[in-house]
Structures are given as C-alpha cells and as structure tokens.
C-alpha cells in the first residue's frame, strides 16, 4: 500500500469521526481546518463515505457546503419507537430529585446540579428537557459560559408554584446556602 493511499484511508476515517461527533452540520472548511489539510482533499473522502453508507443505518446528507450524518430515513419507525420509549415511563426518583433541585435553586448550571447530587446528570437533564419540564434559560457569566437551567412556565403552573408565596421561604433554605459557601 502506498503512502498516499494510507493517508487517504486515514482522512476518510477522520472525516467520518468529525461528522459523527459534530453538534451541527459541518462545512468543508470546518472539516479541513480540524484536520489541517486543504478542502480539495476532503471532497474525495466525502464521496467515498457516501458510497460506504449505501444500505447502512447511517446516511450522509449535504446542503450546499454543509455535511451531516443522520440515521437512515427508512428506519424512522424503529428510531422513534426507541426515542419515545423513555417518555412512556414516569420520572425516576433520580429525575425527581434533579427536578426538585432545579425548581428551588434555579437558575443553575449542570455542574452545580452535579455538585449537589454527586453524580453525573447529563442524561437526566436531557430527559427533563425533552419532557418540557426544564429549559435552558441563559448562560452563566463564568468561565466557559455554561448553560443555566430553570423550570418551564408550564411546570411551574402544573405544580402550583406560580404564586410566589408558594415558593419556600429563604430561611428554610439557609442550611443549603451555608453548605454552598463552604464548598
């Protein structure tokens, strides 16, 4: 195998990795810059990837200069069954705990939620968002500008929290505030 071919194989693999992890569609330029090679060298890999994905569960789509991986449209029935599965169950105790923390400490970041719960909470925060119970309500003015979460208006109303008197008094929360400072 010649050096050029090896390099080509690697580029295709890297392009695939980048498209896989990306949060949003990537432009040719973004891909090229992340790899550190000219745009012209990306195009061939994208063509090859497209061919590789024939009859596969992943498809490569493009809109102009932008490329993204999606799940194969013909599998949409099973995909939505899987994604809806979790929504059919009521909230777990861990999810209720997280929801309670967000309700009474909002706005707060995921790191702050994790600090209180002592466990990674990615999955639960995501689940509460999909259920329309919490939402991103801003960014914290600190390093990395992390997302701040809060409960949705719908949830506040549902719980009978919209009346401000219903929210816990500050004294009741004092214990917690103290812990917060000490940490």
């Amino acid at each position, binding site marked *: 195998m010649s050096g050029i071919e090896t390099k080509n194989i690697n580029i295709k693999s890297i392009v695939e*990795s980048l498209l*896989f*992890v*990306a*949060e*949003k569609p990537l432009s040719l330029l973004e891909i090229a810059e992340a790899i550190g090679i000219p745009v012209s060298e990306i195009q061939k890999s994208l063509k090859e990837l497209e061919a590789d994905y024939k009859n596969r569960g992943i498809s490569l789509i493009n809109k102009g200069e932008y490329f*993204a991986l999606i799940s194969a449209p013909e599998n949409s029935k099973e*995909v939505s069954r899987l*994604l*809806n599965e979790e*929504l059919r169950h*009521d*909230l777990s105790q861990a*999810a*209720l*705990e997280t*929801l*309670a*923390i967000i*309700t*009474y400490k909002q706005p707060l970041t995921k790191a702050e939620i994790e600090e*209180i*719960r*002592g466990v990674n909470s990615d999955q639960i925060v*995501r689940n509460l*968002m*999909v*259920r*329309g*119970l919490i939402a991103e309500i801003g960014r914290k003015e600190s390093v990395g500008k992390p997302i701040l979460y809060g409960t*949705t208006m*719908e*949830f506040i109303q*549902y*719980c*009978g*929290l919209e009346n401000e008197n*219903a*929210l*816990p008094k500050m004294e009741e929360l004092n*214990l*917690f505030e103290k*812990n917060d400072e*000490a*940490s």
Partner: protein
Amino acid sequence: MYAVSNDQFEGPLDLLLQLIEKEKLEITTVSLSKITSAYLEQIENMQGTSSEMADFLVVAAKLLYLKSKELLPDIKSDEEEEEIEDLEAKLREYSIYKKAAANLESILIDGQRGYSRRAKSESEIIFLPPQDINHQMLFAIFQETLNKLPEQIEERVITDSPEQKITIEDKKKIIYSLTKKKKTIRFKEILAGAKNKTEVIVTFLAILEMIKQKEIGVIQKESFADILIMGLK
C-alpha cells in the same frame, strides 16, 4: 494526597510501598521492619485531620510490633504476627493495583479517546410532567436531597492547629533526663503527657532504641504489670 517535603503519597500503604521501592526491597516482613523508622519519620511531619492520621497510625502500630520484636526477640504474639502477615498481603495486593493504575495512566496519556455524538435527535418536546406531584412533595424531595449532601470537612480547618512535633531524638533526651532525676520511672508516667497517638508511638520507639543502645533497662515483674525504666548510663 499527602505531601511531606518532596514526597507525595496517597495513604499509608502507598507510603510503605514507596519506602520499600526506594530501598529496592521486596514486599516481605523483613523489608517492612527495615523501613519502620522511615515510615514513622514521615508521619511525624505529616499534616492531616485526626481521622486521616488514624489510617496512618494503625499501620504504624503494626510496624512497631516488628521493630520491637527486632529489639526484644522474646516478645512474640500470635495476634500481632497475624496482623503483620495481613499487612504484608494487603501491601502485595495494593502494589498490583498500583501497577494497574500506572497502566491506566499510560493508556490515558496516549490520548486516544472516543467521543459520543453531540447532535441531539430532534425529538419534539412534549409536556410530560410527573404524575400526582405538587410543590409540597417537590419541596420535600428537595430537602431530602440536601440532607444527603456529605458534611463539609470543616474539621481540617478547625482542629488542625499546628501540633507540636516531637521526634524520637527529642523523646530520648527527655527520657534520659528523667532517668537522671529519678532512679526508676514508670512507663505509664512517661506516656501520661502524650498529646496524641503519634507521640505514644514515638515514645515507645525511643524507649526501644535506648534499650538497644543499653542506655536504659526495663523491668516488668509480671504480664500487664507496669514497666519500670531505669537509666544505665
């Protein structure tokens, strides 16, 4: 992590292991006995909360038995023998996990890491609140969660007043001067002033060394009777 001067260690077992490795020894009872003094020296200069120190002292007590057996070959207790064997076995086990940790580190230093997909499926957000919940229940859950928070370790800040460090050398001088003043002193008397377990251990070591160097002699009339100490020089 504990740090004494330039040395860093994660706990008593780590300290033992490092001392053994420094001397290029195998993990054996003999090695443990060889590094006893070095171990005690390290913990004498260590800063830590009393519960942290306790972990180190439990091991120190076992090492002291070895040391005392070396100096006074007659004393031998099955229970202590067992504890030493147990310590040796634990140290062997720990050393294997240390290797596993080093291996893990080499993997991580390699920097080959998988990343999961960041793009989230465009699932429609539907309002699906938990069933039968109201704000009282939610607040109760909130308080319960807070109660589970680990207590902040304030002990470190409050109780860690700079303790007076005492070395074996210091203790030997004190015992020596005591034997000058009185012909015999009771072992209990010497220990009475000890401020913590470390000092008790240091005192005991000092006595053992002085016996070895024939600076003092000890008499114990019967088991559990008070030990009497007298100066020989």
